[in-house]
């Protein structure tokens, strides 16, 4: 079994980053007057993580957090500005050809060979990895069957639906039986049925002793699939652990998002004094986020407190312990922002 490790990865794009590999905190222009401004976009800012051999590990974060860039660095497609990445014992940027033998990659955007049929895509992929003819034919048939593509095996992929292309992309990544499988937003754009099939296949591949690293901005997927997660924002890891541990780390667990039309100065202190409230934060000029160990039962007390303080409570939203709340707790922003 093979693990994955990165040490203090930094990546600054000097022009706009490629699609599905953007990240960081937005453009930073340092051009001089009179010359066209050179745009530097930081995508990774000292990202370090360690994925244990045989683990399903998730990178969770909003779009532009640096997830795809991390996968790009680990899969020899993005050269880091500094820092080191390893697949097993091999340093990615010193032994790229060796590393490529160990990894399988499912990209965020389908990159299937449009000049070939579905079956040829699998067979040629295996041939690039030096797998003999009989073995690659047999494996292609098995994977086509498993991914329910046998009927379309001899058709060109140009007319395939998004879900079929995604299934074929995963089948291709598994053709050479890689030790580490990278899946970049694997269920983006998939219907629920295909998503469940995909999750089953990922779990099954993991049971065969393989390491899986997937990126997602879907909390349900991260929660359902991953043994450990790194929550990434602005190119670095802001929280790391098993989904359960991470959720338990949110003060109280419940999040109550309140909006007030008018907000007296001492409201925050008074809210903090309520029983079960663990943390009170100003969300913006009119909002307050309350982390508490109970949800709905707190509303009555909050409403009467607001009435006595002459604060106009205009909106209330309660959410149960979730990774979304965790992200919000660390960044003050929603994963969906």
């Amino acid at each position, binding site marked *: 079994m093979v693990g994955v490790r990165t040490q203090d990865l930094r990546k600054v794009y000097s022009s706009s980053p490629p699609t599905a590999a953007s990240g960081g905190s937005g453009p930073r222009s340092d051009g001089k007057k009179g010359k066209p401004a050179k745009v530097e976009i930081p995508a990774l800012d000292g990202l370090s993580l360690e994925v244990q051999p045989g683990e399903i590990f998730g990178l969770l974060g909003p779009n532009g957090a640096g997830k795809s860039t991390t996968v790009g660095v680990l899969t020899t497609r993005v050269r880091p500005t500094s820092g080191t990445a390893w697949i097993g014992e091999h340093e990615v940027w010193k032994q790229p050809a060796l590393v490529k033998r160990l990894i399988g990659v499912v990209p965020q*955007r389908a990159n299937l060979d449009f000049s070939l049929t579905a079956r040829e895509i699998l067979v040629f992929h295996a041939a690039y990895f030096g797998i003999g003819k009989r073995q690659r034919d047999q494996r292609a048939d098995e994977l086509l069957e498993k991914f329910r593509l046998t009927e379309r095996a001899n058709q060109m992929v140009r007319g395939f639906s998004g879900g079929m292309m995604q299934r074929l992309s995963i089948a291709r990544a598994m053709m050479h039986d890689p030790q580490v499988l990278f899946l970049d937003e694997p269920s983006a754009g998939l219907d629920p049925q295909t998503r469940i099939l995909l999750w089953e296949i990922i779990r099954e591949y993991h049971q065969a002793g393989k390491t899986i690293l997937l990126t997602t901005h879907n909390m349900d997927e991260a929660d359902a699939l991953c043994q450990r997660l790194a929550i990434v924002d602005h190119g670095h890891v802001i929280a790391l652990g098993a989904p359960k541990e991470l959720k338990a780390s949110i003060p109280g667990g419940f999040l109550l998002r309140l909006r007030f039309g008018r907000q007296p100065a001492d409201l925050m202190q008074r809210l903090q004094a309520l029983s079960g409230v663990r943390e009170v934060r100003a969300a913006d000029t009119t909002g307050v986020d309350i982390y508490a160990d109970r949800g709905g039962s707190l509303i009555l007390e909050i409403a009467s407190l607001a009435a006595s303080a002459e604060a106009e409570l205009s909106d209330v939203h309660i959410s149960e312990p979730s990774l979304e709340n965790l992200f919000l707790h660390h960044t003050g922003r929603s994963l969906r922002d």
Partner: protein
Amino acid sequence: MNWKAFGAMLARDAHVARRNAIQLFLQTFLQPLLFVFIFGRVMVRSGYLPPQYKSLLLPGIIAICMVFTGIWAVAMPLIAEFQWTREIEDRLLAPIGVAWVAIEKVIAGMLQALIAGLAVIPFAWLVLRPVEISIDTPVVFAVIVVLVATFAACGGLALGCSINQQHIGLMFGMVITPMIFFGCTYYPWSALQTFPLLQKAVLINPLVYASEGLRATLVPRSPHLSIVAVLIALVCFDVLLLAIGLRQFEKKAVS
């Protein structure tokens, strides 16, 4: 060096070329053969051009076919694959150095250029016959043909990795068309004597050496540039275009 991966990529390109054989055939040969028919047969038979013109025209047509095929075979897939379909990513993830993926493209382009160059000879001969051509120095001819095919494929690599999809039309209008018309394909270089400035300026065009080299070996009695100059120039262009192409390819392949 992983020869298995390299061979499999070549096999993939051969498979795709076979699948698109009819399209490739029409794309490669139709225009040059129409040109051969009009200028080599209609114009000659009707007395507007002398019969000797047929021998001057044939090497130029071979050069056009080879160069156009090589550039097209390498540049067009690369433009689409890097910018639109991204299908090259599968080969970039094969267990082989990234530069070898580019070199495989060059070898595949060279082979297609060679096939195009050699296949156009019997077709053109059928249209033009009788036409006087002879290969007195087969080794020199072979070397020149290989160097021309290399120039075409390396040119395709450099162009394919430097041009955006929306500029394909511009590539043909601004690069390929002037290259063909100022490439001594339809006339020998010596015919430009009366345009001394133009005669010197066209020497930056690698197609000039391809046409003149083929003319020197197929129609040795016709006026042509010295074979040594042709060989030196073609080797220099091959090396230069390969270096530019590999650099651009690596820039595209790794961000």
